[in-house]
């Protein structure tokens, strides 16, 4: 009777203390006012931004803030802003709305896709983007649309679809898709331009006709089918068979809303009732379900981001779920973190932990983690170790060494006297020997055997034997058989069976205390001193040198590697995990908001199980750092969101700036779902200064950039270590002003050369002309002088003068004056190129006077020269005089045949004409008079003189200049 009551009591206790492994989680609301917003869709784009579709529009999240996108597509009608579907693949993000519209996100803007031919008009349930560019759009009322190059084709129930309400499509191959509807699934194949639709409903073994989710299982031909009421089923695309694997009883977790397939075995399912199910598919027929409940939430959609975070879109916002990398199980009293003194895990995955004198065990493989009290020691248990034969070694404070055998008995180790009352700091072992760190140095011991319980000392190691100190906090045998020691007083020490090795780099730290030492999956040794060090390629490096150590706590208490090559280090108030591929730490502290704010107080109070999960006690129970199927990439990314010129926004598409728009700012945003601390950035402007500049700001301005081609590169890092950092680049050109462009300069140069050439040419021509003119003039002058001193002329003139002296003295005097004038003027003007018409007229007048005196009325000059031309026009000197002289020279001048010389002028030319009455005996003519005039005109102008016989007249036309 009593026993029954006790059993019932125990049962009640057990049912109250059901402690399953569960993830840490954190809720986010999209708005600052913390009002719940239902999230309908969630995707992560290629850069890393998380996009969220809600009834009120589109948001994106970079790990820090939610930003609402201004809706330009549905601005008219509020009710249609609802985003019901999102898809991200192959560099594209496509949005589906409740009104059937589709948009693509380009540069943080939703640009409507205008679909031609068939386009959806009812609410979009899901979108699938293929590498080929085809987009599958599932709708509530119109079946499915295939969109290629914005041309849509519709497939609905009138063409053989089982139902018009289509939830989801999965692409099986190039010509085959699988879709889930309200009336089962349809396997659609295109063969020889024929659509072959094969439907599967409950008649074909489908547990439920409403199939809401279809998800491919990696590396298998299988697909998960998530239904509305009956949970999960599997579909084999090769055999076209549907079956339901055996799970933990009937489906009680509600409507399946989303599925994430992580590996062939591991699948995560979320439901409308708030359940997150971790499904371990053992084989095609059997699956084990581990459930976690998120009460009062509908889990709508699930996203696994690149950093390994699970993001559940809920009816209230967003929930971060950590189960891919960290989880925990709660432990009730008498568990208390402050009492935990040692922890170890055995080969059967039993977790042992000690609270002072008490030893407890937890079966890690059991769904409910309940600690069972196993043993009470005589003194505080300081160390636990499980050897190769699965014996649990128990080290105590002041009461020596004990061990628990396979049959459950705990016995005192029989061996050297020194073990009896030793205070044991740490126990570890190699294949052959057991190592014990105590207050008197190290004991290397033999293991007890079935026949011989006696433990024999192999070697005693202490300060004088070569360690350099008697105190060793942790012993670690590496894979090569060396024993590593974390010592107090001698730094880290390696013992290879013969010699002790030390490193003196600790001098720099002024500390010779190392608390913890371990080896990671790659064979690198890690140790925790005042900082965290790694021995990599024979070099110790401070792994936290790049971190902002000022704000972090440095009291490291344990370091341990897990099965995926990560290293977990435990500090006083935080923990961190080293991601070797990302070359970064993931921090777990209070700031993260997950509720991790306590760590064990005792050194090296961590352990790992057979599959490589690491266990660390904390306030509520035990934290598990999961061994991961794949190592996630926790590196933050950075996105150059826009550039601006003189603080005015330019778009990201702009890559060429005019030379006067050279004050360019770049704005970038970090995307980080890992650590709560602000990101560090560094940037460089290639083409300007090839040097990295570190910053915490999210914008940078380059004033007055010279013309040229540039590439702006920005990288983001969780710390100041930019090895393997993600980056974004922006290539742009500041245009060269036209006056600095090659073609322009070349043109100018050619022009100048041409001009110079022309000038030189002109000058040369002019000089040549001048010299020719000079020559001509000299000839002319010579000829002229010759003609003027022509004895005939002189003889005639003097004869005339003689006659005049006899007839009229006054006239003779005047004649003499005119003759003198004539000669003076001839002399004055002969070396000039041009003289005014008036001056020439004067010469002619003097000359004519002299001739008139000789010939009297037999010589008549008819002149008609407008007065205005006299002082404005020029002729070459002595031209008219020469022409008149010629006329007199060649024609008869007598009273019976008077010579009438006519001179008339207009604006352009002067005309000298006389009727021809040739002399019988010609005066000797050099014939050079006219030729000379003509040559001189040629040298001065393009205008030519004309002369010739016209009717009975000899005419000479001189151009007026």
């Amino acid at each position, binding site marked *: 009777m009593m026993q029954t009551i006790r059993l019932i009591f125990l049962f009640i206790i057990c049912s109250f203390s059901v402690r399953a492994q569960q993830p840490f989680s954190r809720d986010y609301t999209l708005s600052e006012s913390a009002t719940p917003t239902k999230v309908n869709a969630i995707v992560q784009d290629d850069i890393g931004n998380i996009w969220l579709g809600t009834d009120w529009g589109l948001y994106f999240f970079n790990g820090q803030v939610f930003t609402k996108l201004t809706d330009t597509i549905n601005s008219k009608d509020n*009710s249609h802003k609802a985003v019901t579907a999102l898809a991200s693949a192959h560099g594209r993000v496509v949005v589906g709305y409740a009104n059937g519209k589709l948009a693509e996100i380009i540069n943080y803007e939703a640009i409507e896709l205008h679909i031609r031919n068939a386009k959806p008009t009812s609410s979009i349930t899901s979108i699938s983007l293929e590498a080929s560019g085809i987009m599958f759009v599932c709708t509530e009322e119109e079946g499915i649309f295939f969109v290629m190059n914005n041309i849509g084709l519709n497939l609905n129930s009138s063409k053989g679809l089982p139902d018009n309400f289509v939830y989801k499509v999965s692409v099986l191959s190039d010509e085959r898709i699988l879709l889930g509807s*309200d*009336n089962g699934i349809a396997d659609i194949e295109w063969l020889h331009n024929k659509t072959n639709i094969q439907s599967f409903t409950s008649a074909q073994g489908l547990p439920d006709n*409403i199939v809401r989710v279809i998800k491919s299982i990696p590396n298998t031909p299988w697909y998960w089918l998530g239904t509305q009421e009956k949970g999960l089923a599997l579909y084999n695309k090769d055999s076209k068979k549907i079956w339901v694997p055996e799970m933990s009883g009937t489906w009680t977790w509600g409507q399946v809303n989303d599925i994430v397939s992580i590996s062939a075995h591991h699948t995560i399912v979320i439901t409308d009732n708030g359940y997150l199910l971790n499904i371990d598919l053992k084989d095609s027929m059997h699956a084990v379900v581990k459930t976690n409940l998120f009460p009062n939430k509908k889990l709508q959609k699930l996203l696994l981001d690149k950093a390994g975070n699970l993001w559940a879109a809920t009816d209230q916002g967003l929930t971060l779920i950590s189960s891919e990398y960290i989880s925990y199980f709660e432990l009730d009293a008498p568990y208390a973190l402050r009492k935990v003194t040692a922890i170890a895990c055995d080969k059967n995955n039993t977790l042992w932990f000690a609270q002072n004198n008490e030893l407890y065990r937890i079966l890690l493989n059991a769904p409910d983690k309940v600690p069972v009290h196993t043993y009470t020691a005589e003194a505080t248990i300081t160390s636990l170790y499980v050897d190769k034969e699965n014996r649990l070694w128990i080290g105590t404070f002041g009461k020596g060494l004990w061990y628990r055998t396979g049959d459950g008995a705990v016995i005192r180790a029989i061996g050297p006297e020194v073990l009896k009352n030793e205070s044991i700091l740490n126990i570890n072992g190699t294949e052959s020997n057991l190592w014990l760190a105590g207050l008197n140095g190290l004991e290397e011991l033999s293991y007890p055997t079935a026949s011989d319980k006696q433990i024999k000392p192999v070697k005693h190691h202490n300060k004088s034997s070569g360690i350099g100190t008697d105190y060793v906090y942790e012993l670690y045998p590496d894979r090569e058989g060396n024993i590593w020691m974390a010592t107090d007083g001698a730094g880290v020490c390696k013992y290879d069976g013969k010699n002790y090795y030390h490193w003196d780099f600790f001098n720099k730290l002024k500390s010779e205390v190392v608390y913890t030492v371990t080896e990671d999956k790659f064979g690198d040794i890690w140790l925790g001193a005042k900082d965290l060090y790694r021995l990599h390629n024979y070099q110790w490096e401070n792994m936290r040198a790049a971190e902002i150590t000022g704000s972090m706590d440095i009291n490291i208490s344990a370091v341990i590697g897990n099965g995926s090559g990560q290293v977990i280090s435990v500090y006083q108030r935080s923990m961190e995990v080293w991601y070797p591929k990302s070359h970064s730490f993931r921090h777990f502290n209070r700031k993260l908001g997950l509720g991790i704010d306590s760590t064990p107080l005792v050194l090296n109070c961590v352990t790992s199980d057979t599959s490589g999960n690491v266990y660390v006690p904390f306030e509520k129970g035990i934290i598990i750092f999961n061994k991961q199927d794949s190592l996630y990439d926790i590196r933050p990314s950075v996105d150059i969101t826009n550039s601006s010129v003189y603080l005015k926004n330019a778009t990201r598409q702009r890559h060429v700036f005019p030379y006067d728009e050279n004050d360019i700012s770049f704005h970038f945003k970090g995307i980080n779902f890992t650590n709560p601390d602000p990101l560090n950035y560094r940037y460089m402007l290639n083409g300007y200064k090839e040097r990295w500049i570190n910053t915490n700001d999210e914008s940078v301005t380059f004033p007055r950039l010279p013309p040229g081609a540039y590439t702006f590169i920005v990288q983001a890092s969780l710390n100041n270590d930019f090895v393997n950092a993600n980056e974004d680049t922006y290539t742009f050109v500041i245009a060269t002003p036209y006056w600095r462009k090659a073609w322009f300069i070349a043109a100018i140069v050619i022009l100048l050369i041409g001009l110079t050439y022309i000038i030189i040419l002109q000058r040369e021509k002019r000089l040549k002309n001048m010299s020719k003119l000079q020559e001509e003039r000299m000839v002319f002058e010579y000829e002229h002088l010759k003609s003027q001193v022509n004895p005939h002329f002189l003889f005639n003139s003097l004869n005339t003068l003689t006659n005049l002296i006899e007839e009229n003295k006054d006239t003779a005097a005047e004649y003499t004056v005119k003759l003198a004038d004539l000669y003076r003027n001839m002399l004055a003007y002969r070396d000039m190129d041009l003289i005014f018409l008036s001056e020439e007229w004067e010469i002619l007048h003097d000359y004519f006077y002299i001739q008139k005196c000789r010939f009297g009325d037999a010589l008549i000059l008819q002149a008609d020269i407008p007065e205005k031309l006299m002082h404005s026009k020029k002729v070459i000197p002595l031209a008219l005089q020469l022409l008149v002289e010629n006329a007199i020279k060649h024609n008869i001048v007598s009273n019976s045949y008077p010579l009438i010389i006519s001179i008339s002028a207009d604006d352009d030319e002067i005309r000298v004409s006389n009727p021809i009455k040739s002399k019988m005996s010609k005066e000797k003519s050099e014939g050079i008079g006219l030729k000379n005039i003509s040559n001189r005109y040629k040298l001065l102008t393009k205008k030519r003189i004309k002369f010739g016989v016209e009717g009975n007249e000899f005419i000479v036309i001189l151009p007026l200049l």
Partner: protein
Amino acid sequence: MIRVRSYFLVFFLLIGPLSWGQTNSIYIINKGTVRFYSEAKQELISASSDQIKGAIDMSKKSFLFKIGIASFIGFNNPLQREHFNENYMETDRYPEATYSGKIIEDVDVSKNGEYDVRSKGKLKIHGIERERIIKAHITCKNGMIKIECNFIVPLAEHDIKIPRIVMDKLAPDINVTVTAILAPNS
């Protein structure tokens, strides 16, 4: 636009089958009751109406039900009914609630039997349409169909705002029970 479209829907689904449907796959509500109750901290409110109209096309597995909001009676006091119509449901603007859609599971009307089915469709209350899955119990007997179902209407989903002052008197989720007997349209 939306309203016009839904009226068309009503027209075709209701009037259409009634006037042109010559097959006996169409069943019309003979008698039915819609009842709702709100269970808040301070007050239990319930009301009902027997003015439900509707039809099911068993061959197409589609249905449409509608009810005039003003026909609900049985409130705790006349003022409450006035508030219900004027403040919450805005009956002038949105005089009807409708539910149209399809039945997921197969029902064989020709034989006597009972079925638990899911109906899936658009529930329109207060002018706001919501895609819902509502479970129903169907009893077929002698060519007649009896439908029983109950479901929850979250007021927030239909944009029905509750003043803070009546938070304790009005539940945010309203329970609705529908019973109807349908006979073939002859």
